[in-house]
């Protein structure tokens, strides 16, 4: 009898455990995360800033999550394929999209079909500083630049990379705010923009301070306006957009995205792991090495989501106006 009883008890216990397992499966999934290897999709080609960012984060996150990570570059269509593949992936937080602000600029320009409703931003980790940089032989400082542009409408030419890039958005928002009659030429590569500024073929460019630092130090280029709230500690002499009365502070940002249907617990788990990476000395010394330490890069999931939505609205409006 007792053995029979035992069987009944064991069976019912087993059933109860299975039922319980089904009920708590969602939170279990989050507890088990990650349950396998992760895949990082890089929305850019190999060797660029976003790729370096991804490959720097990879070993640090591998260590913290105790898993192994595969990195795949999907540069086609300004990374739109990477966003699409992320949005179509299993919503279990195992496919992460590493992207730059190009995600939202190309969305505004209609070149990226994956909307912000299909992706959840996990965190922003880098925020580069956008600057207006000129050839010092052409314009001495921002006031001289502005006066020249006012007196010679339509003649000032500014360069940048690509037609739907953060550079272009900086140009559009600057032109919109300042009311200056200036024009923009998109180049395929950053090198072509720099060489045209250095050679004096164009008046200046919109670009990140990190990538032009060497020209600034040598005196071949001069930043005359930074897109920031406050003057940068390292460049106290450059005026900011905000002090000129223009609320323009966006630069190129880099962050991590997952499928929008990913459970909130998992998103916050990844967010915490990324935050730990961000705060590590190892990561901070990388930021310093690539000159991305001028301002705080970190932004949590919710705040970043809100910021991206605001950006999208602004960029869409600016593109519509042109």
């Amino acid at each position, binding site marked *: 009898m007792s053995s029979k009883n035992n069987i009944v008890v064991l069976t019912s216990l087993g059933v109860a455990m299975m039922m319980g397992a089904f009920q708590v499966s969602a939170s279990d999934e989050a507890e088990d995360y990650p349950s396998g290897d992760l895949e990082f999709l890089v929305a850019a080609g190999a*060797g660029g800033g976003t790729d370096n960012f991804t490959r720097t984060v990879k070993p640090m996150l591998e260590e913290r999550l105790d898993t192994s990570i595969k990195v795949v570059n999907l540069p*086609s269509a300004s990374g739109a394929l990477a966003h*699409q593949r992320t949005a179509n992936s299993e919503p279990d937080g195992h496919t992460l999209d590493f992207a730059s602000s190009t995600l939202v600029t190309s969305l505004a320009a209609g*070149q990226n079909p994956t909307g912000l409703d299909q992706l959840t931003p996990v965190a922003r980790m880098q925020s580069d500083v956008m600057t207006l940089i000129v050839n010092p032989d052409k314009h001495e400082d921002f006031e001289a630049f502005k006066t020249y542009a006012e007196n010679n409408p339509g003649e000032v030419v500014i360069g940048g990379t*690509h037609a739907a890039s953060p550079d272009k958005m900086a140009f559009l928002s600057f032109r919109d705010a300042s009311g200056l009659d200036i024009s923009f030429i998109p180049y395929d590569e950053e*090198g072509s923009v720099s060489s045209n500024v250095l*050679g004096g073929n164009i008046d200046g460019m919109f670009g990140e301070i990190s990538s032009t630092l060497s020209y600034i130090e040598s005196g071949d280029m001069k930043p005359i306006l930074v897109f920031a709230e406050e003057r940068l500690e390292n460049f106290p002499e450059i005026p900011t957009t905000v002090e000129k009365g223009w609320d323009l502070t966006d630069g190129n940002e880099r962050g991590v995205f997952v499928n929008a249907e990913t459970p909130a617990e998992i998103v916050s788990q990844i967010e915490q792991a990324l935050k730990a990476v961000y705060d590590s000395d190892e990561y901070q010394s990388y930021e310093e090495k690539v000159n991305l330490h001028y301002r705080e890069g970190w932004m949590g999931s919710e705040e970043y989501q809100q910021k991206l939505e605001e950006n999208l609205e602004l960029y869409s409006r600016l593109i519509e106006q042109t």
Partner: protein
Amino acid sequence: MLDGFLSGLSVVLQPMNLLILMSAVFIGFVGGALPGISGVILVVILLPVTYGMDATSAFMLLTAIYGSTVFSGLITAILYRAPGTPEAVMTSFDGYPMTQRGEAGKALGIGVLSSAIGGLVGTIALIVFTPLLASVALKFSSPEYFALAILGLTVVASLGGKLMYGLIGAGMGLFIATIGIDPLTGTSRYTFGSLNLAEGIGLIPMIVGLFAISEVMKRATGGHVHQPLTKVNVKIFDSTIMRKIAATLSRSSILGVAIGILPGIGASTAAMVSYSEAVRWSKHPEDFGKGIPEGIAAPEAANNAAAMGALVPLFALGIPGSGTTAIILGAFIMHGLQPGPMFMASSSELIYAVFAGLFIVNFMILLFSKPFITLFTKLLNIPYSALGPIIIMCCIVGTYSVRNSMFDVWLMLGFGVLGFLLEKLRFPLVAIILGLVLGPIAESELRRSLAMSQGDMTIFMSRPISATLIGIACALLTVSILVPLYKRYKKRRLYSESAS
């Protein structure tokens, strides 16, 4: 400068560094010889490996790989018409016909010698003239690039074969080049809403398909169309040939350096322009494409010279001259170096060690290419029924790896079929590639020029370099159209005189 070079040489000649250089050359040989695996990919793969090395060794490794891949693309281009790298496409036009005639060894020898000479000329220019050349490169802006592309396109009129086919081919290339997102306005062109087409048609799927795949198809359908190759005896120094190609070599090397230093234009374009000019200046342009030594010497000297030339703006200004150098630029930054106008001054030791390393690499190419090619040609003993599928497999893997895109693989296979059909019609594939490579430069630089001048067309004439280039293009075009007309007129008069 000589001091710097000599101290650089002493760094390079340390056994460890020599070993690094040798392995770099070997890696470059293998990667370059495989269709689809280009220098860009190899450098990206090895980038993380270099983070643990000291900066000097790391950059000797990366630049040596870069230099040797540009060379070794010619091996498969000549043997199987499967260009190992985009830089070697032009080499297959005359290299492969020579292989078909049983002159593979001769063709490879010319290729090796031309590469090494082009590379040396490029390296010497790099060492001696870097600061000077960099300032010349800055004089080039959109109007000059436009003029250069036009000059390159006019050669269609001088290519052998039917002029109409040449024009159609170039037009086809120009059309394919417009597919994708317009670089200036961001408008989608001929993409039919497909994300895969947004970036345009890649050069690698197109080249690999048109050349390698179509050739495998041709051989599969035509049985053994040429003599089986069992023994390839590479002869690098052949005095009669050397005398024959000396003029082409010197012109192409200089042209290669000149084009290589321009930011944004790489060794593939240099090889193309150099081939075009070799055709234009030749006394017998109709022989190009049928397998003549000049047809190998011109692109090979130019692409290797250009590869070195592309390093000039990188070292002097921090501006990459091509795709691979853009990645090397990223690597400098990851190593905590600051490329830019001050780079030569602040890191001169490193730079001269890299220069000395490249100098040695060109000799290593001369020295090691023969045993490597011998090893490689052992493959020729494999029956084509097995080799053909191996080539196709390499093409698929290589094409996929460029963008991790299966779409590109289908595209490549599609171009294979297209190339096969076009060749049956005796269509000049050169013209298509010419249109594809030069088309985007011509189009976008024309529009950028006009944006610079607020729509004023005189910008092309008011800038001395672009005015000169356009002038030369017009003159050459006129000559190449008038000369055949005059010849025909003379022939007709002769005919009517003799008739009367």
